[in-house]
């Protein structure tokens, strides 16, 4: 049962990821990424990390994918449903070779590593994660909030239009 579930999730995950990198339409690529991220959340449920699965769906699909879609709409060259996402023909084979080589290297390294844990440990609880955030990892947690603030301010400064009338015309 577990093997079948993992097999199905893996197949969906890899298929969706291939959709991201091979799609001809940029919008389709972004939506394939959404499928990949949601399937990853399913994998997290499978690995008994339900809290993380929820966070993954809310932050990634709710945040990242929406941003990407807006990015696509703001940077397209003509008003069509098809947004070009072409591949660099000359570098295609080099890229494929590099990816395969990296995979071979990583796989070899994994199989050679001694002492990988073989059995599953006790599942962690959401309660324990929350406590770890506000005790052991409090400093990292606070620094992260600062980083998010910095990213937000940075993005607004970078993407802002510099003509004065833009604010008055703003809105959707």
């Amino acid at each position, binding site marked *: 049962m577990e093997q079948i579930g993992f097999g199905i999730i893996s197949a969906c*995950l*890899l298929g969706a990821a291939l959709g*991201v990198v091979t799609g001809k339409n*940029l919008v389709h690529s972004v939506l394939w990424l959404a499928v990949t991220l949601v399937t990853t959340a399913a994998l997290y449920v499978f*690995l008994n990390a339900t809290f993380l699965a929820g966070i993954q769906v809310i932050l990634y699909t709710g945040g990242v994918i929406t941003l990407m879609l807006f990015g696509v709409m703001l940077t397209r*060259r003509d008003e069509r449903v098809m947004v070009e996402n*072409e591949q*660099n023909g000359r570098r295609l084979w080099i890229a494929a070779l590099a990816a395969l080589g990296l995979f071979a290297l990583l796989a070899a390294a994994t199989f050679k590593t001694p002492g990988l844990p*073989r059995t599953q440990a006790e599942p962690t609880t959401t309660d324990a994660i929350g406590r770890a955030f506000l005790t052991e990892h409090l400093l990292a947690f606070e620094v992260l909030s600062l980083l998010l603030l910095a990213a937000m301010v940075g993005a607004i400064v970078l993407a802002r239009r510099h003509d004065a009338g833009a604010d008055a015309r703003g809105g959707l």
Partner: protein
Amino acid sequence: MPLTSVLLLSMALFCIGVFGVLSRRNAIGILLGVELMANAVNINLVAFSRFQGGVVGQVFAVFAIALTVAEVVVGLALVILLYRSRKDVRVDEANALSG
């Protein structure tokens, strides 16, 4: 399922991401590849936390997810800036500084 199969899956995802980053011309297409790679790393963190026990793996994964969101925000702002100055987001066209 053993840890090795989860690791192999995340490795494959990471390499697909690498392929995307190397082969795409559109800046947003490249960002999508980076997202795939970050996602693969998170899977590794969660898998090790499942098999090794302890809460640190998942805490770290939450940090990683938040960092990725911040990275995407800034990355997209840069892409929009690129589009505004050149009306094009193909990264190999943005070579004004190359000799």
